[in-house]
């Protein structure tokens, strides 16, 4: 459990507001100027502070692996990403100090649960699937059913790997496919290229398929995503 200084401020506001409200409920003082002033603090200013900070913290929380891990459906992906022996792309990218603990977020920024959509329908999609279905089976049973909703976009990788470096461009495969890669025609995270980001979840026979196979959007996007 990590509680940031900002969260302590929010909590302090909440406690003071709660005390004001409780005192009002217990004593029911006459509504003079002083009472109204306190209530303006206790029902207005302080709870609004708590809510604002709570939103900032809440949105930030969704970037952490722990948030994704609060559904057991995601267990294997998280376990593999944090396995020091795994050489999947997700694992490699979870070892940096800079964004390791937010690795799901940096690659899956377009996932429905990020941003304010969290409380809207897009983000609720998976909560809905979870509550109506996945919550009743263990992660082993779910694993073969969970698929990426849309083909993974190279743009997500190119936030960090600009495709303009000397070493990067010196790689013959990159040179030959440069336009395709930038346009997202050929996926970086595919068998034959950098391999899957989460290789453990793919049936072994997939390993031999050519890169283009991944881009055939054979996986149907689930409704609501």
């Amino acid at each position, binding site marked *: 459990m990590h509680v940031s200084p900002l969260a302590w401020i929010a909590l302090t506001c909440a406690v003071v507001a709660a005390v004001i409200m409780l005192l009002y409920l217990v004593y029911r003082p006459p*509504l003079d100027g002083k009472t109204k002033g306190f209530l303006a603090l*206790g029902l207005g200013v302080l709870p609004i502070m708590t809510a604002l900070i709570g939103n900032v913290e809440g949105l930030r929380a969704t970037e952490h692996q722990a948030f994704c891990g609060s559904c057991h459906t995601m267990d294997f992906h998280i376990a593999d990403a944090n396995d020091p022996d795994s050489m999947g792309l997700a694992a490699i990218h979870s070892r940096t100090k800079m964004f390791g603990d937010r690795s799901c977020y940096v690659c899956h920024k377009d996932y429905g649960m990020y941003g304010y959509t969290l409380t809207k329908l897009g983000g609720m999609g998976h909560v809905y699937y979870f509550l109506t279905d996945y919550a009743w089976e263990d992660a082993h049973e779910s694993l073969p059913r969970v698929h990426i909703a849309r083909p993974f976009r190279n743009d997500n990788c190119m936030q960090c790997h600009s495709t303009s470096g000397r070493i990067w461009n010196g790689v013959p495969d990159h040179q030959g496919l440069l336009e395709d890669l930038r346009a997202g025609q050929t996926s970086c995270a595919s068998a034959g290229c950098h391999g899957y980001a989460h290789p453990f979840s793919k049936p072994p026979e997939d390993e031999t398929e050519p890169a283009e196979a991944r881009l055939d959007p054979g996986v149907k996007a689930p409704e609501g995503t």
Partner: protein
Amino acid sequence: MNRWFKKLLDRGSRSRLLVVACVLGLIGLALMSWSLFDQGWIPVMMAMSIGQVIGTLSFGLFLLVVIIDLRRATFRPSMPAQASRKEDR
């Protein structure tokens, strides 16, 4: 304006409204505070949806009380017409 709402503005009990506002406020704050310590999807979602709706309702009731209050006060919304001085009469 809605009849019921008008009646509320004219005759609503401010202290009863405030009791409701405080109870709602406490529930909203509890939901929002929970998510500060436990950042799993349930607390975070509850705080950002239900918690905020309840909190906003509570604040709304407080504003309603302020409006009721202001309507009962005596205000002079604009400059009074030139006060009549005795000698002018």
